[in-house]
Each structure stands twice: as structure tokens, then as C-alpha cells.
């Protein structure tokens, strides 16, 4: 550590201080900012258009020039989306499915992750390898047997059909195992010497410390399942069990016949919870998404 900082100091002392490159660097920074701003316009523009078009009267939806800023907001499309679509039911379904999956994943992943990290048992390595290997098989490939299984246990076309199969999580287990491995092991030893049972050691010593890790698992689960489309498309049949993305796609219709601003109002409403997570849990979401990639 100290050697590198002295090296750096030496490098700084040796480097000739010329004024010319600094000016050039400022220009290159300005150029970079312009390019980055253009990229941000391409990323945020479509979302802004969606927001401002949802706030225009339905008749003006396709009017050109388009509007990117909602200067005179008109909420009639939001009234309409509540009338044309049972959006409260969709929100409730999505919230129920997403919430139960997230909580379920947090608990089951914490328990399993703890066992893989801190408890010794026969076949631990082999079992963990199997858990990791299941991540290689995409959910789309196993959907046919899952669909049969759901039918077999009489859960077809229920919200439980979406919830139950999504609770056991290989990635969450992996994440929690890494998290528990990062906690000092002498905490557990101390508790054991104190006479705490292994369950108490987990419950009172490790689980509270692992809350940030569990939060990452929960936020990742929320982000994925709030937005997921493929499984609900297959596992739900009647409209009363639809989740938000499914309801919105059916509102737009195969030929795009739904009223544009009304559909877009629904899209904006469906984004609100994700936006809340974005604002308060962005850090956790970023850490979770890049976990297990060697960083």
C-alpha cells in the first residue's frame, strides 16, 4: 500500500507540468459531456415522450410535433385507464405476486445461504454446485413441465402458480452465501461458546447482520417479477389473475388499437413502484445485478 502511494507521488513529481495539455483536456471533457448528453437524450427521451403524451388529451396523442414536456397536463387518459382496465386489480395482483416472491426469496435464500456458508454437512460442495448449475438452464426451457406441474397440483390459473415456483432462488442463495462468507466467523464461535443454539446463532447474530444482503435479494426479486411477462403470459388464463405488464399488453391490443394516451397512462402508472425502487434502492440493485460476475 505505502509503496504504491510513494510511487504515485514520485510519478506526480516527475511528470512535467505543462499548461497546454490541460487546456486540451478541458476541450476533450466538453466533447465527452456533449456525447454523453446526446446518449442520455436517446435514453430518457422515449420515457419523457411517454409521460407527456399520457398527459395530453387522447385526441392529440399522435399529433406532430410530439411533446416531450407536459406543460398543460390533462388527466383524462388517467381517468380512462381506470375505466377501461381494472387497473386496481392488476396493481393488486402484481403487488401480491411480487411482494410474496420477494419476501419468500429473502427468507429461503438467507437460510440456505447460511447453511452453505457456515454449517458443515456431508455433500455441501456437491449440493452447492447443483444449485449453481440450475442457473444455466433458462426458465423458458422448463416452462412446459412447470406448467404441467402447476396443473397437476391444481394451481393452474391462480396467483400461487406464479408465486410458488419463483420462491426458491439459486442466484439469491449464491448471493447470501457470499454475504455470510464475508461476515467474521468468530461471531458464531463466540455465540456458540455462550451456549446459543445454532438456530439462535443464526437468528440473533447472523440474520440481523445479513439484512443488507437480504435487501439486495428482495430488491432484485422485486425488479424482476414486477416486470416479468413470460411466466404470467403462460401461467395465468383469466383476466382477473393478470399482472400489470400482461394487462397493459392486452390493452394495447394485437393491432395497437387501444387509445394511445390511455395505454401510455397505464404504462406510466406501472412504472411508479419501479421508480421508487430506483430512487431508494439503486445502489442495492446495482450491487445485486453485478454480483457474481467476478467483481
Amino acid at each position, binding site marked *: 500500500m505505502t509503496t504504491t502511494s510513494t510511487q504515485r507521488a514520485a510519478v506526480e513529481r516527475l511528470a512535467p507540468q505543462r499548461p497546454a495539455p490541460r487546456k486540451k483536456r478541458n476541450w476533450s471533457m466538453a466533447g465527452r459531456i456533449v456525447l454523453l448528453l446526446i446518449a442520455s437524450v436517446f435514453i430518457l427521451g422515449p420515457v419523457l415522450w411517454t409521460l407527456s403524451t399520457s398527459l395530453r388529451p387522447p385526441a392529440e396523442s399522435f399529433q406532430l410535433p410530439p411533446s416531450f414536456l407536459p406543460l398543460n397536463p390533462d388527466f383524462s387518459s388517467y381517468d380512462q385507464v381506470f375505466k377501461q382496465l381494472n387497473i386496481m386489480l392488476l396493481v393488486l395482483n402484481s403487488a401480491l405476486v411480487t411482494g410474496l416472491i420477494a419476501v419468500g426469496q429473502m427468507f429461503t435464500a438467507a437460510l440456505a445461504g447460511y447453511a452453505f456458508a457456515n454449517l458443515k454437512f456431508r455433500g455441501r460442495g456437491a449440493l452447492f454446485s447443483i444449485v449453481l448449475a440450475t442457473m444455466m438452464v433458462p426458465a423458458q426451457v422448463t416452462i412446459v413441465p412447470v406448467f404441467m406441474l402447476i396443473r397437476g397440483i391444481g394451481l393452474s390459473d391462480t396467483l400461487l402458480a406464479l408465486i410458488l415456483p419463483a420462491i426458491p432462488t439459486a442466484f439469491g442463495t449464491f448471493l447470501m452465501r457470499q454475504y455470510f462468507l464475508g461476515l467474521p466467523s468468530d461471531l458464531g464461535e463466540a455465540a456458540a461458546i455462550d451456549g446459543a443454539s445454532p438456530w439462535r446463532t443464526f437468528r440473533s447474530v447472523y440474520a440481523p447482520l445479513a439484512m443488507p444482503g437480504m435487501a439486495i435479494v428482495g430488491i432484485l426479486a422485486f425488479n424482476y417479477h414486477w416486470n416479468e411477462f413470460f411466466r404470467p403470459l403462460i401461467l395465468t388464463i383469466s383476466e382477473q389473475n393478470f399482472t400489470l405488464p400482461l394487462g397493459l399488453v392486452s390493452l394495447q391490443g394485437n393491432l395497437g388499437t387501444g387509445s394511445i394516451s390511455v395505454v401510455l397512462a397505464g404504462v406510466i402508472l406501472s412504472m411508479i413502484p419501479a421508480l421508487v425502487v430506483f430512487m431508494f434502492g439503486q445502489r442495492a440493485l446495482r450491487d445485486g445485478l453485478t454480483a457474481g460476475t467476478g*467483481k
Partner: protein
Amino acid sequence: MSTATTGMSTKRRNGAGSKRRNGAAPGSETTGRQRQRWLPWAFLAPTILGMGLFTLVPIVASVVLAFFRWDIISAPSFVGFDNFAEVVQDPTVRVSFLNTIMFVVVAVALQLGLALALAIMVQEKLPAWLRVFFRSAFFFPLILSAASVSIFMRYLFNEQFGVVNWLLSFVGIPAVPWLTTPAGSAAVVILVYVWQNFGFSFLLFIGGLASIPTETYEAASIDGATGWRKHLHVTLPLLSPTTLVASVMAIINALQVFDQPYVLTRGGPGDSTRTAVMVIFESAFQRLEFGQASAIGVILTLIIMAITAAQFRLSKRFVFYQ
């Protein structure tokens, strides 16, 4: 820091030790150990049972099912490799796999190129608030649902009234028939997919760039390397482990593309934007050919496994580790 922790734990351990001397009977330790034998399984039960039922059994079942003909109504019959033979010869399946491969090649190249260029620009000297803004902006599409994104993008790419063609008209490009022609539809699916997903590769590159020590750049600039040459000779080699991980993850995700083409084009016009997962979906849940759907799924899984295996090989040969 580490000394402090050790000191603290030693203190705790001493306290705990004295407590044991006073209280616990020696016999309780053996029962504790016996209890520990089944205890890990209690922790594992929800995950292992759940994964067994909803992941492992379905994996085995879909491999088995690939050798049967089954339409749910009549009893399944064993047909050997017939499903695979039929699937491989089916023109729709062939076109869909070709589409998927084309999609993966173009989308992943765009996604990685864009992500890398933007990550390098964001990580260089920049006012802190701007860096936070750009990072959040590029990350933002990842929190949206692919279905919702495809819903509003479908309007933006409308031939007559869409914003995209309106903008293109200013540079003299006549209305592009985006969603009504095979090439236009394929382009839209790729653009919408990359729009939403490049942020993931961007995050990985940001992490990779942050782990390159600044001394390396200082040394390079003393040697006279500037601007893009510096990135070509320093950043790219040192970033190769990240690039490998980012490309493998991008390829695996892109191979499973479904939501965007389903909502944007329903696979059309014709079969021009039909993908591998779309034919799995259609043969299973529209034509009730569950055996064929499973066969297609097995082929897709084998491709994904081959790519994952290739990653390990490649990382040994080409990746430069510090």
C-alpha cells in the same frame, strides 16, 4: 482495522469462556452436536425442496418429454429422436434459430460497444454530479418492464405518426416502414432490446474500469500514450476479464429474447422476427406439441451450455489477468 476486530473478539471470547465454566453441563455439548447433524437440512429444506420440485424435476422432465409425443389430451407416446428430427427440419424453427443468432450477434455487438464507449467516457475526469446523472440515466431502462418498453416503442416507431420517422424527416430520410417490413422489424427489435439492456453491460464495465489502478495510466502517459491510444493499449487489455464476463452474460440473455419481439411484432411480418423462445412458446401453448417444444428447449439449453463452457476455455487462453 483488523487488529481492532481481533482484539474485540478475543475479549468477547474470554468473557464467553468464563461463562461456560460457570454454567453449561458437559453433556449438553453432545446433544448439541447430534442436533447439528440434521440442522443444516432444516435451513436448506425450503430452497432444496422448492428447487427440486420447480427446477430439477422440470429440467429432467423437459429432457424426457423431448422424446415423447404429447398433446396433453391423449397419452404420451415414445418417439425416440423424431421430435429432434422434425424440429431441425421445420422451416419455421430453422428460421427462428437463424433469426435468434443474427439478433444475438448484432444486438450483443451494439450493446457491448455502446456500453464500453460510454463507460470509458463516464469514468474519465468528469464533475461528480454529472457522473452520477449519466450513470443513473444509462441504468434507468433496466428497471422498466420489457413489455412496457415495447408498448411505447411501438408507437415511437409508427410509420406515419411515430416520433422516430418525424425526427428522421429533418435529415431528409423519407418515412421508414419500421414495423411492416422484415428488415425494419428486425432493426426495431434490436434497437429496443439494446436501448433497454446496454445499461447492464455498462455497469459491468464501470466496475471493471474502477479496478484498473490509476498508476497504470500514469505510467502509460509518461510513456507518451494519449487519448484513444491509451485506451487501446492499456484499458482494453486490462479490461479483458470484464469484457469476457459481459459478453457471455449478454449472449446468454440475448439468446432468450422473447418479450420485445412478442409485443413489438408477434414474430412478424412472416417469420422475420420469430425467435427460439417464441417457437417454444408457440409449439407448446398454441399448437400443444409439448414434445417438440421440449426438444427445441433442449437444443437452446445445449447452445447456452456450450457458450458457458467456451467461456472457461477462452478465459484461460486469451484473457489477461493482472
